């Protein structure tokens, strides 16, 4: 991924900052600049999520793309944040620990790197809360 494309998402990736439509109250992560319900009558502001959530579904990736090959196996999940929106992220736990319905909270982690001398990508992962 190009440096610029990674760099401009740092506020969201490093801090779990999404958005909220103040017209209908719905939260978004990944951030949206247009509310899909209210569309042009919506008003979007930034929202800092508290990072608490629940695993909706998950898998254990055993065969990955080149960038993630060295980290296999890893747990990938769809996490529903307590404010409502869902996101796709890794859960830093053993494959056999992962369960649908488990409570998790966000942590700041190294996600991947562009080869040996390229950009290191940091971002949000989750860890079990209990």
């Amino acid at each position, binding site marked *: 991924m190009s440096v610029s494309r990674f760099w401009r998402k740092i506020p969201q990736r490093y801090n779990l900052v999404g958005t909220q439509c103040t017209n209908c109250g719905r939260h978004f992560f990944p951030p949206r600049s247009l509310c899909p319900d209210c569309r042009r009558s919506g008003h979007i502001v930034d929202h800092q999520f508290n990072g608490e959530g629940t695993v909706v579904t998950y898998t254990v990736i055993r065969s990955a793309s*080149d960038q993630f090959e060295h980290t296999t196996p890893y747990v990938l999940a769809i996490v529903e944040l307590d404010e409502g929106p869902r996101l796709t992220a890794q859960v830093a736990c053993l494959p056999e620990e992962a369960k649908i319905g488990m409570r998790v909270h966000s942590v700041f982690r190294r996600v991947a790197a562009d080869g040996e001398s390229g950009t290191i990508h940091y971002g949000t992962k989750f860890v079990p809360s209990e």
Partner: protein
Amino acid sequence: MRDVAVIGVGCTEFGEHWSTSFRDLFVNAGALALEDAGISGEKIDALYVGNMSAGRFVEQEHIGALIADYAGLATKNVPSTRVEAACASGGLAFRQAVIAVASGMEDVVVAAGVEKMTDVGTGASVDMLASAADREWEGFAGATFPGLYAMIANDYMNRYPLTREQLAQVAVKNHENGAKNPIAQFRNRISVDTVLSSSLVADPLRLFDCSPITDGAAAVVVVPLERAHEFTDSPVRVLASAQASDTISLHDRRDISTLDATVAAGKRAFDLAGLSHKDIDLVEVHDCFTIAEICAIEDLGFCKKGEAGKLTAEGVTALGGKIPVNTSGGLKACGHPVGATGIKQICEVVTQLRGDAGARQVDAEIGMTHNVGGTGATVVVHILGV
């Protein structure tokens, strides 16, 4: 709007074509389709080419022009357009051709699909296919395509009574059909054991739950129904063409295990044709993974949610069953050259409706195709009949 008919189909063998280039794959399929339709290149008014990612698989863009050129149509100045919707590119190219003919803008139109996937390594192709989902918010986190469908499978199996064995039966059935298809990539029969002892790709999906990396091309010729008799005695009518969208990310879906775009496109297609699922004699669904066929059968309305696994295990979807699904072998056994799959589905249904399907022939007058882009962000459904 004019009624539209398919008058010719052509498909290369699907598989690993080490000695055939991207452009030659298309030319081979195109030539077969024109020969089948009994027409020559001068008669073609327009070309629509489904292709997902030639830019990354073979580092070639400007596919419309390349295809027109090597089909011998550039010097005739025939307009040629590339259509892209990830794995639904082929189905969407067919839909564009149907729209062009139905509207009266064009008369003789070729819809084609082509992909050359084996010129890159597996890790690179996994990365390219992941771009059919949300690259910035799914791919960034390490989501692979099998991984996303594995999350659908885990959600489904957590909520509905589907066993791992029933899921494996989808692959067993599709290999059985593929064994009877001369263009299929895999023509070997497999057992439930073969599937369950294959390596895990993304839990609970194993290698034999996944469609393969494939090279291939397919092409069809469409004309106004009123002119079909000029070319053939056995035209196949396009009874409905429907398309629907959903969120690009799986995590934003209303329901992880229901592809709402399939539900919407299926319903639109049935409404347009004035038919119901009871009228369909065979269906080619997008089984990029075994769980995808389970969801497709339900989301198109052939059974209630949660019942497709049982139906598959009982043979209802096999050749000779009440509703044969993926007589071609599907994406699983026939192979999945992403941009070509949607056109291959049309080729299979047309071949079946004409009674030319040989060992895999089913008794059919009306057939359906279901082509999915990504994890369900684009779905294209067609109904064809004789």
